[in-house]
């Protein structure tokens, strides 16, 4: 218990210091009048359009870009992916399950109503209990046992299981919404005309075209620089690039490696890329059938030339990995390299497991996203080269209907990816490999215990050490076929001063733009 108290005191000091430096880091806007900058336009390239601006419905990375410029979480990740207070001032942790969070007292929503602990409680209540809203963020708060107000400007969170990534979920997924407004207008109306606490407020939303936000000069933090920011929804990649070149937009998102050549030839725009948080792997049914044998799973890992895929197919904008998250994510183990490309070893392992040319291993290889077809084909050919009989299939429903409901058949494989929203190892592990949580295919009592222990470890270094050990174990068990993590690629007008972040978040309050 004494340990916790010491930690709580330390974390308070760190957070207060963080708040001070965070303020200074943002102080780039000091001396710049609110909203005096040029308007900035960002295109959110995505096959779908946002249908609601409610920040607590979806978990889609793309449309959270709008939410994070209009709303605040209790915490936030700064540019170096370190936790900083946002609507919170500080926190303490009297025990492993309890978080006492002090809130800012100087915050008002865009409609002028003050931000209080009642809004925090109502935000979490709505995500958990509102069946009609059916918030997709529900699973990210399922470890919360209770949220209770302590006066107007403090709340207590009590968790079910110890979770050191908990505060990161308050920093990346959950945004605080005003109770008074939602009580009055309801979810649907709120989704049309959201009211937040953030540096920008809603100006207009033209369905299918754009969302325009204007500077909120009552913002409690550093005043936003751009007078307006605009989010466009151009879904066609080639049109997006033309819009960037013609100066209609300033930042193009989700740029694919094949289109970077077109951007490099242009003087007015630059390609910016950064190690991202999206990691790809092959998930498989390890409970029964051929993949129950770890030698077969290792053989798949040795059979694939990830470096060739990253260089040739993905234009070098990808990095081979031997883990289920990228190096920008907390918990990444530098000492665990990707599996080497060793087809002979793959063949030997398959022989050991009882497969040869007279009795080849047969697998069904599923893909549910058309853009991954080239990668799927390439992996299938590497697997065929070591004597595996591969049937490739494309089925857009496979992920939801089969994989997600835990109904994968024997010998079935799917290529999938995970956007590590929390920038934390536990996020990917909980979704794929933890038998006590969602992990519905591979799990073992030993790895489950190791994941829980690392999750509950409050000391940062001890936690990293726990993941280092776990990653070594997982590498050898090969619960999935590790592939690569991809870079975030953006096309950016040379007139704007903006840098991408590893978590893919786009904050626009500090962006300056030359005429």
């Amino acid at each position, binding site marked *: 218990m004494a340990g916790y108290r010491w930690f709580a005191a330390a974390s308070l000091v760190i957070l207060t210091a963080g708040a001070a430096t965070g303020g200074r880091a943002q102080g780039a806007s000091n001396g710049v009048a609110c909203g005096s900058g040029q308007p900035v336009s960002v295109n959110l390239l995505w*096959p*779908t*359009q946002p*249908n*609601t601006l409610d920040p607590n419905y*979806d*978990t889609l990375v793309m449309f959270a870009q709008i939410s994070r410029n209009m709303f605040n979480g209790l915490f936030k990740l700064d540019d170096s992916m370190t936790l900083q207070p946002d609507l919170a001032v500080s926190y303490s942790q009297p025990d492993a399950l309890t978080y006492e969070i002090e809130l800012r007292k100087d915050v008002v929503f865009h409609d002028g109503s003050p931000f209080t602990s009642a809004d925090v409680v109502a935000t979490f209540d709505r995500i958990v209990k509102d*069946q*009609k*809203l*059916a*918030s*997709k*963020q*529900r*699973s990210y708060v*399922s470890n919360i046992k209770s949220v209770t107000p302590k006066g107007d400007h403090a709340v207590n969170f009590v968790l079910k299981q110890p979770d050191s990534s908990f505060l990161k979920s308050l920093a990346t997924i959950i945004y605080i919404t005003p109770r008074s407004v939602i009580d009055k207008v309801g*979810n*649907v109306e709120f*989704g*049309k005309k959201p009211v937040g606490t953030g540096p920008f407020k809603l100006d207009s939303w*033209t*369905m*299918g*075209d*754009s969302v325009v936000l204007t500077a909120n000069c009552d913002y409690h933090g550093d005043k936003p620089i751009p007078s307006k920011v605009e989010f*466009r*929804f*151009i*879904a*066609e990649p*080639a*049109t997006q690039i*033309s*819009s960037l*070149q*013609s*100066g*209609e937009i300033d930042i193009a998102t989700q740029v694919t490696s094949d289109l970077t050549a077109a951007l490099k030839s242009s003087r007015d725009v630059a390609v910016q890329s950064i190690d991202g948080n999206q990691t790809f792997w092959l998930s498989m049914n390890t409970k029964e059938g051929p993949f129950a044998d770890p030698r077969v799973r290792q053989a798949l890992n040795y059979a694939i030339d990830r470096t060739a895929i990253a260089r040739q197919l993905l234009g070098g904008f990808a990095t081979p990995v031997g883990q289920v998250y990228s190096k920008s994510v907390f918990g990444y183990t530098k000492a665990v390299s990707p599996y080497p490309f060793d087809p002979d070893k793959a063949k030997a392992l398959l022989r050991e497991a009882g497969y040869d040319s007279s009795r080849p291993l047969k697998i069904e290889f599923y893909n549910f996203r058309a853009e991954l077809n080239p990668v799927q084909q390439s992996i299938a050919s590497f697997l065929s080269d070591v004597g595996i009989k591969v049937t490739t299939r494309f089925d857009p*429903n496979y992920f*939801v*209907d089969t994989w*997600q*409901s835990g109904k994968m058949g024997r010998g079935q494989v799917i290529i999938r990816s995970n956007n590590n929203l929390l920038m934390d190892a536990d996020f990917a592990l*909980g*979704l794929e490999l933890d038998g006590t*949580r*969602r992990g519905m295919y591979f799990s073992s009592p030993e790895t489950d215990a190791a994941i829980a222990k690392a999750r509950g470890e409050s000391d940062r270094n001890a936690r990293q050490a726990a993941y280092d050990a776990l990653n070594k174990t997982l590498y050898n068990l090969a619960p999935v076929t590790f592939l690569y993590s991809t870079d975030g690629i953006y096309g950016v007008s040379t007139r704007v001063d903006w840098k991408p972040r590893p978590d893919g978040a786009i904050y626009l309050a500090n962006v300056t733009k030359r005429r």
Partner: protein
Amino acid sequence: MRSRFINRLAFSVLVMLGVSAITFLLMFLAGDPAALLASEDATAAEVEAIRKAYGFDRPIVVQYLDWLWHAVQGDLGVSYQSRRPALELILHALPNTLLLIACALALSVSTGVIVGVLAATFRGSRFDRLVITGSVFVQSLPSFWLGIVMILIFSATLRLLPTSGFRGPSYLILPAVTLATFQVGTFARMVRSSMLEVLDSDFVRTARAKGASAGSIVFGHALPNAALPIITVVGLELGGLYGGAVVTETVFGWPGVNTLALSAITSRDMPVIQAFVLVVGILVVITNLVIDMLYTILDPRTRGAR
């Protein structure tokens, strides 16, 4: 005439009922709707709660009748994504699509008629041959390619026109031209052959013999008679325009009903997809009904026929 109209109307209602049944069944082709609504890592209990909340646990027939009962009252369900009425979303985006289609149609019909009439009048000339080859050429251009090339030329390079979206009349030019291009060829060839047929007929020869001017022969006598097949083709081509608008809207980021539908398909937002299919189905049925009636009014010969 009235009985013919009533017959056609009754038939249209039957078609719409068929469309509604297919539309409803779409929901079950895309997998478990409750699982679609839940988040990526929802537990089985969470999925069950959603299934109950949305009534997916009832028998399919009951769900269909319930859906149809609400549909005839204008309630096509609520978008899974936005929780807004699906019909409201579709009707909000529909005017943009209709505007685009109307402009493209006006552009392609007027261009097609002028070019076709000229080609027929100067039959066998170099211009005529150019029209014949040209109309095949423009019909062979894929519209996504044409759209991107036009954006590259007029927006990215010349910076004359905006690339995408809809914030004023100038935004309409590139998508309307792209969408119209395919149809121009069809109309030009149609008008040309129809005009040639009429120009060869007896009454035109009589008019010529009476000493009528070339202009009055072409525009006063021949064109009105050649117009009937054009109207039929417009009716047929409208279906093509609705379809062609899907690609055009995507390339130009046009905030129309097709962009919305494509987005709904990708996120498997079933109520919106259903509303889209139903509304467009009804539109096509109504358009054909109107064309049919128009035909009867314009051509007295068809009035007796059933």
